[in-house]
């Protein structure tokens, strides 16, 4: 079986002998080390793993185990950089490491490292981790009632930073509009804090302590329900 590297919607920069690949479809960025980069570049639909290994071995000046090439193809497919996944069972990395050590080959084990590119809303929040689930508030107008001073991360994500802290300034209630693209990680603590703050805001809207139209009140209710649905089963 031969393999095709994917090319559509990818931006590729060679940096030293490694590759940086940016996937415009899902905003994932991948770093391919030298061996993985060579394997990927050789996936033109003409060679199977054995043939790729033979050719790369000549380039790298050592013997390259075809299982290492298959492992690289697995990683590349998992990263979405191949047109198709390799045939056959996935080769475990541990197995490949042992095989390469036994063969005393000089080539580095192929490696593909992936991160999720930060969204603009993450300008001030700790992200760019391997893909994580976030609370989706797109298309919803929602308010929270928080305690200040707490800004920056609290506005765009890291909602736990929004609950205030003891300091010299007395805490003050403030209502802040959550940006639709706020990046709030879906975890138990964020769910609890966010729901409390949204409910507090709704209570203020209902009692007239916070000026709000009927449409905004309904929108706030919808947003709260949406967050509750997303947070179901999160521990």
């Amino acid at each position, binding site marked *: 079986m031969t393999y095709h590297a994917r090319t559509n919607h990818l*931006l590729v*920069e060679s*940096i*030293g002998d*490694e*590759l*940086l690949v*940016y996937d*415009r479809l899902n*905003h994932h*960025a991948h*770093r391919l*080390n030298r061996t993985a980069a060579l394997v990927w570049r050789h996936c033109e639909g003409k060679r199977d793993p054995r043939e790729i290994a033979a050719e790369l071995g000549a380039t790298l000046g050592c013997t390259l185990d075809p299982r290492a090439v298959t492992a690289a193809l697995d990683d590349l497919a998992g990263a979405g950089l191949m047109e198709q996944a390799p045939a056959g069972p996935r080769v475990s990395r541990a197995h490949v490491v042992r095989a390469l050590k036994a063969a005393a080959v000089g080539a580095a084990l192929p490696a593909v*490292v992936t*991160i999720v*590119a*930060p*969204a*603009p*809303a*993450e*300008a*001030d*929040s*700790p*992200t*760019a981790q391997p893909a994580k689930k976030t609370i989706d508030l797109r298309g919803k107008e929602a*308010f929270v009632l928080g305690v*200040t*001073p*707490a*800004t*920056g*991360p609290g*506005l*765009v994500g*890291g909602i*736990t*930073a929004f*609950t*205030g*802290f003891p*300091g010299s*300034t007395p805490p*003050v*209630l*403030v*209502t*802040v*509009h959550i*940006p639709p693209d706020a990046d709030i990680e879906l975890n138990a603590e964020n769910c609890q804090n966010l729901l409390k703050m949204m409910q507090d805001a709704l209570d203020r809207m209902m009692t007239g302590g*916070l*000026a709000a139209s009927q449409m905004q009140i309904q929108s706030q209710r919808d947003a709260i329900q949406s967050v509750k649905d997303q947070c179901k089963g999160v521990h």
Partner: protein
Amino acid sequence: MRLRSFGVTFEIVAARDVAGALAPAFPPHATRTACEGRALRFSVGLAHPDRGRLMTIHRGRRTICRDAPLVVARDILEHALRRAIAVSSPHHLFLHAGVVGWKGRAILIPGHSFSGKSTLVQALVAAGATYYSDELAPVGDDGLVHAYRRPIALRTHGGAFASPSLPAPRAQSVKPLPVGLIVCTRYRENAAWAPQELTSAEAAMELLANTIPIRARPRRALRLLKRLALGAPAHRSERGEARDAAREILRMI
């Protein structure tokens, strides 16, 4: 009032006394402009004048905060302006990074909030480096890093306050610098400084993870990040006390 900063034009609509009170929130190096044309519009009003100075801020038609006292409104406005510049600047690529100048080169410290950037920047400045930024690194198309100087804000758990030990930088300009060193670090109590050199591609990934408009302009960003990564050594290490790490870092250039 129209302001321009890093190629982005803002229109701030507010009563004169309110605008004056909000001035500390305006971006550093912003200049007044009379030019017409597209501008990002922020309007600030007093929510309930009879209840004291509680402010409501809108960006365009969208409310970004209500019932905020002045100190909070300033923070929120500053954050919104900073974010707008970082996303929209046409000629600068904004990284989430601390920057100091040392021996004619910029030391770039990429990192997100709560990684200890501001504390480390403060320690580097105390050790003699020139303060450029503790938060954002604007990189020009020529690969030079510009300053984004505002009072260093040190975080406590869950919030931020201005450092009492460093005065706000004066408005004098500092010239853009080529990057001389990239340091990827985060604080861990009692951590030993043990830098490991990164490959250029690893350095580019670290920078990419902290590139604010990466999704909007990935092609341009990748090219510039490649240039930065190939142009300067990069190291990664945990760090303990900032003062000790600062000393070690300055020795590396």
